[in-house]
């Protein structure tokens, strides 16, 4: 054990050292701001030259997206539609399945069952997305082709489905947190009135936790929009303006992958398109994330 002797100089030194450490720690925390600024700076500075070449009107209304062809068209609509359809398919699996699991874990399951099931579910989201891509392309698609024989080898249905399964644990754990934050007396009140567990869950707990649950759905939405490898592998690499999930189509993320795999020179319009797609992705997920976190905070404030 070392004893600190407190003469004036050593105290000064100690204060200085403490101050230095605090500044160092602050810089580490501040780095996260720099990352965001870096992202915004790069995305915007690479997108500006693009919008000098391409008018916003063409960008929004042209039905074709062929920046790498000789006859280049820059209509973002087909990529955005691809992203929307895969996201919709994913969420239409993830939200119902995740919500049911969450209600079960929060209201029905015993402590022991919950502690067993949750880690296993977490493994679902630990599987690397490239492995999910393999699974979607080489297992789920052949399986679905037995049900829909006209289904093409690349399609948004199987990519969306696998993405949905990947997001299930994310939805279920966030929803469960929200429902468990509802105080016990709400349950007791409802049960004392003669309601069954299901009635209590659906009519008392679920509505009381609604802002947390909506937050979970929005954060899941943000996940699905930004998911890359599954759609790049299983949904195809051709922009396709369609609402039919059985068809192949390219998403914003898959387009970035496709261009990055090629060897496009720095500074060309084709190269700038990936930053434009990145900017759209960033803006969409930014809005969802912020909105999701505000909603999540709302629930916490109500019951704490």
């Amino acid at each position, binding site marked *: 054990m070392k004893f600190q002797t407190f003469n004036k100089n050593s105290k000064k030194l100690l204060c200085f*050292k*403490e101050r230095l*450490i*605090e500044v160092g*720690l*602050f810089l*580490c*925390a501040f780095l*996260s701001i720099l*990352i*965001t600024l*870096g*992202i915004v700076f*790069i*995305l915007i500075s*690479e997108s500006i030259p693009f919008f000098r070449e391409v008018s916003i009107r063409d960008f929004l209304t042209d039905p074709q997206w062929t920046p790498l062809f000789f006859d280049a068209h820059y209509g973002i609509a087909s990529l955005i539609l691809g992203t929307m359809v895969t996201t919709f398919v994913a969420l239409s699996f993830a939200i119902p399945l995740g919500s*049911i*699991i969450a*209600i*079960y874990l929060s209201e029905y399951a015993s402590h022991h069952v919950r502690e067993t*099931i949750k*880690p*296993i579910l977490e*493994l*679902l989201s*630990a*599987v*690397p*997305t*490239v*492995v999910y*891509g393999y*699974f979607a392309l*080489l*297992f789920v698609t052949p399986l679905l082709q037995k049900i829909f024989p006209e289904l093409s080898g690349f399609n948004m249905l199987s990519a969306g489905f696998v993405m949905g*399964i990947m997001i299930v644990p994310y939805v279920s754990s966030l929803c469960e947190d929200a429902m468990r934050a509802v105080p016990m007396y709400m349950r007791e009140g409802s049960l004392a009135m003669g309601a069954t*567990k*299901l009635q209590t869950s659906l009519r008392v707990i679920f509505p009381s936790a609604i802002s947390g649950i909506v937050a979970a759905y929005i954060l899941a939405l*943000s*996940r699905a929009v*930004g998911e*890359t*490898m599954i759609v*790049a*592998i299983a949904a195809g690499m051709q922009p396709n303006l369609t609402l039919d999930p059985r068809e192949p189509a390219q998403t914003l*993320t898959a387009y*970035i*992958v496709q261009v990055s*795999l090629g060897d496009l020179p720095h500074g060309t319009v084709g190269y700038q398109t*990936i*930053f434009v797609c*990145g900017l759209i*992705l*960033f803006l969409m*997920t930014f809005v*969802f*994330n*912020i909105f*999701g*976190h505000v909603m999540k905070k709302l629930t916490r404030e109500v019951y704490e």
Partner: protein
Amino acid sequence: MIPLKRRKAYDAIFVWLSGLVLFFSLLTLFSLMMSLLIQGVPRLNVAFFVSFPSRFAEQAGILSAWVGTLTVMSVTAVVAVPVGILAGLYLEEYASKNFLTSIIEINISNLAGVPSIVYGLMALGIFVYQMHLGQSILTAGLTLGLLVLPIIIVTTREALRTIPTTMREAAYALGATRWQVMRDHTIPYSMGGILTGVIIALSRAIGETAPLITIGALTFIAFLPSSIMDPFTVLPIQMFNWVSRPQEEFHQNAAAAGIVLIGLTLTMNALAIYMRYQFRKRIKW
């Protein structure tokens, strides 16, 4: 008013339904594993681990890929672990509640939700084109380091929050300075939780593919890196390359690489879950 009998029946039906849903989710996980194992196990031999990629599927291996994963992960760990832990310490122990702090907090939770491919674009712009680090192991490690930083910060904060204030107050009362309290008490006590977060973050980084594609990972590397400025490939990139080929034989290679990859990430996650469980059980304040 619905009769009690029917309401109870609905209740029972819901329990069955949730059982079915859980079964379905786990069945998917199970069939994913099985499809990988059936396709991939025949390719998993020693030659697969010590061969470079090749045009011929049956001669191809993952030597450059796993060496690449190992080196990139080392860079990632060196970057993200200290910075993440220190940032977590600052936010939990030092930061006063002011505007800047709340901006940093909102920013971190947003960063955790930014698609990984956007990090890749940022790294392409900053590390590759502005700082001229090239499409190298260093760039890849830095990119993944920034990507997992929010995970480490958040888990570090959670771990620190479990330490009761009384422990800190006791140390302060004996005349310890802030840093001494942290170095000798807060950090050692929360080490378990922090390590769990680090493992989870690294297991996420091992599986990341998209940001490394955007910064220009090569898919065919037939040599081992001699410095961190060399070009690289990693396991998920190698697997992606094999999946995207039309030939069945390459799909088998992809499955074998997938088994290795999933083995790594699931082992790390299982370890993290086990550690979390152990620490929760052991520590009683």
